[in-house]
């Protein structure tokens, strides 16, 4: 549904952008040729034309609307990030106040040799990639299944998206129970399946006990267990995004491919999935950015010390700043996170802008 909106919006925006760039005039206004006469140099416009332009451009009229929320965003988001950067240069520690007179980049050089930072950085990347790819795949499969004219479609969709409405505190508690090594559902199910196999394969005893693990305690499985649980929570979101993408594809294309005698799998592989690029990209950006800031889930499970096998930058930042009171160092970790997020969303927003979809 949103895709349709976006599409119609993109058309209009695209048109606007064109006029915007070639005229340097404001978008959306009816093209007036009155101003075209005063040439391309907007360096020194006389006051009359500036006034008309301001009036025509509705800048002043619109200011009371976006100004106050814009001020809050500027202060809390961009001001705070700038301040955070300055704090990261101060070397501030402990209970006192930061000293802004001596600034150095020492925190950042320390990061490069800090083993716990390197481990957290690596885990963050692993989480970001594996979690994103896994959620996208499961979400895509779900969307394709749900899109096959099923009955009770609403019910299925509602159930698949349900985990997304829960707090990470809640889901972390559910999963700590699921992963309980002795009586949790995961290991109980594995034991059940192993039991069935054992009794079926009667000529030999299959030793499959190794399949039950202390998923959240064993350094080998911690991160995988976290990724699996987060996939459980987010794949429904991917389904919603893909479903919107699928619904935007004209059904004539399915029909045409079907009449050509292509199998369902081929239709999806060759015709449908290639058209879901935009959905994949926007869902991937949201997932990756989430993976960068995933904190609540790990904090509830492990507190400030998930151990080097599951530590991620978001948790490390909190531990360093709010547990050890190394504020400047924590701010430096946060800046790394910010730059990572920026390197994901920067290109995305630029692409959206180029396609006229911002």
């Amino acid at each position, binding site marked *: 549904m949103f895709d349709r909106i976006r599409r119609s919006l993109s058309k209009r925006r695209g048109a606007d952008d064109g006029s915007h760039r070639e005229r340097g005039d404001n978008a959306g206004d009816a093209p007036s040729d009155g101003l075209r006469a005063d040439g391309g140099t907007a360096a020194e416009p006389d006051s009359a034309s500036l006034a008309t332009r301001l009036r025509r451009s509705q800048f002043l009229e619109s*200011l009371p609307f976006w100004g106050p929320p*814009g001020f809050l*965003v500027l202060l809390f988001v961009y001001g705070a990030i700038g301040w*955070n950067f300055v704090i990261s240069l101060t070397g501030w520690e402990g209970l006192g106040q930061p000293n802004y007179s001596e600034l150095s980049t020492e925190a950042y050089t320390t990061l490069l040799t800090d083993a716990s930072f390197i481990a957290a950085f690596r885990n963050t990347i692993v989480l970001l990639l594996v979690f994103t790819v896994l959620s996208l795949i499961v979400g895509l499969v779900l969307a394709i299944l749900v899109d096959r004219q099923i009955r009770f479609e609403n019910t299925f969709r509602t159930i698949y998206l349900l985990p997304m409405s*829960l707090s990470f*505190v809640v889901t972390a508690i559910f999963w700590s129970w699921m992963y309980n090594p002795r*009586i949790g559902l995961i290991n109980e199910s594995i034991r059940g399946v192993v039991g069935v196999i054992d009794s079926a394969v009667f000529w030999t005893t299959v030793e499959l006990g190794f399949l039950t693990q202390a998923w959240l305690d064993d350094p080998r499985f911690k991160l995988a267990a976290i990724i699996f649980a987060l996939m459980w929570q987010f794949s429904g979101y991917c389904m919603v995004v893909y479903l919107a993408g699928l619904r935007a594809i004209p059904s004539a294309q399915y029909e045409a491919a079907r009449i050509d005698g292509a199998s369902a799998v081929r239709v999806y592989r060759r015709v449908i999935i290639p058209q879901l690029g935009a959905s994949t990209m926007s869902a991937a950006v949201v997932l990756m950015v989430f993976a960068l800031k995933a904190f609540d889930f790990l904090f509830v499970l492990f*507190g400030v010390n998930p151990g080097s096998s599951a530590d991620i930058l978001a948790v490390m930042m909190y531990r360093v700043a709010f547990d050890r009171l190394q504020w400047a160092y924590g701010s430096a970790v946060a800046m790394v996170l*910010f730059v990572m997020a920026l390197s994901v969303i920067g290109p995305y927003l630029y692409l959206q802008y180029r396609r006229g979809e911002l």
Partner: protein
Amino acid sequence: MSTESTTPRDDTSSRFDRIDRSRVALYAVLLGMVAFYLAPLESGFMTAFKTTDGFRATTPFAPPPAGEFTLGAWQLAFDRLSTGLVNSAMMAIPATILSAFFGSIAAYGLTNLSWRGQIGVLALFVAGVFIPYQAVLVPLTQFWSFVDLGTRIPLAFVDDYQGLINLSITHTAYGIPICTVLFRAYYATIDEEMIEAARLDGASAATIYRRIILPLSVPIFAVTLIYQFTQVWNDLLFAIVLVSDPSNRVVTVALNQLQGSFVQQYNLQMAGAFIAALPTLIVYVLFGEQFAKGVAGET
């Protein structure tokens, strides 16, 4: 009916068979996924009704056996979380309404009124959706300790609920970007000719917003309010950083502490998790469609 078909009967019936079988497989997979998504909730729900012996002796998803059924876990969890529930509501409801309102006017100013450079301002709003909050945590604590509302505004209410007020304002500010994005997608579909006609009649931007835009905004307000309420209610990070006073603890923090102090008491933990999640679960069950739209609009 196909006239060219040379092997009419056999072929069609086997095709129907195949379709039927693939439909059955489809529903089997769909139901399997239902089990996957509901298993943690279902086993949590069952566990919450069991005694300690009960959940140790039975499979997590099985209903409580005779004699092992209890509501004790729910009672204890509710006692522990009731203050948090009230605090969360006091914090989340104003923050949600304010963010939605700010998002609405910002989207109007950036979409239905046009001026040069608005794309740049809009980009700053959109980027705000994706900011990792870790990058603002330390300055935020500094900021709120400087502002220190409690001593600046000599009201008992402000003094008592300083942490919650700070948290509420913080959530309002960080909610504005996503609310703006949601409203903008909707406002871009509003017929421009209608607005233009009103403008030619001499209506000011404020009048147009009040008379035309706002009445049309009811559906998108529903989407935004529901989505944003869920986000604010569910947050833990801002709450643990900004609220230190135990009497101002929100429900996610209280639940985390409950989990930390009753480590092996899974029945208690599960009951607590459901109590803390109840408001968002109710909202989701009643307004799932709006929630899905909010989630999809984030992209």
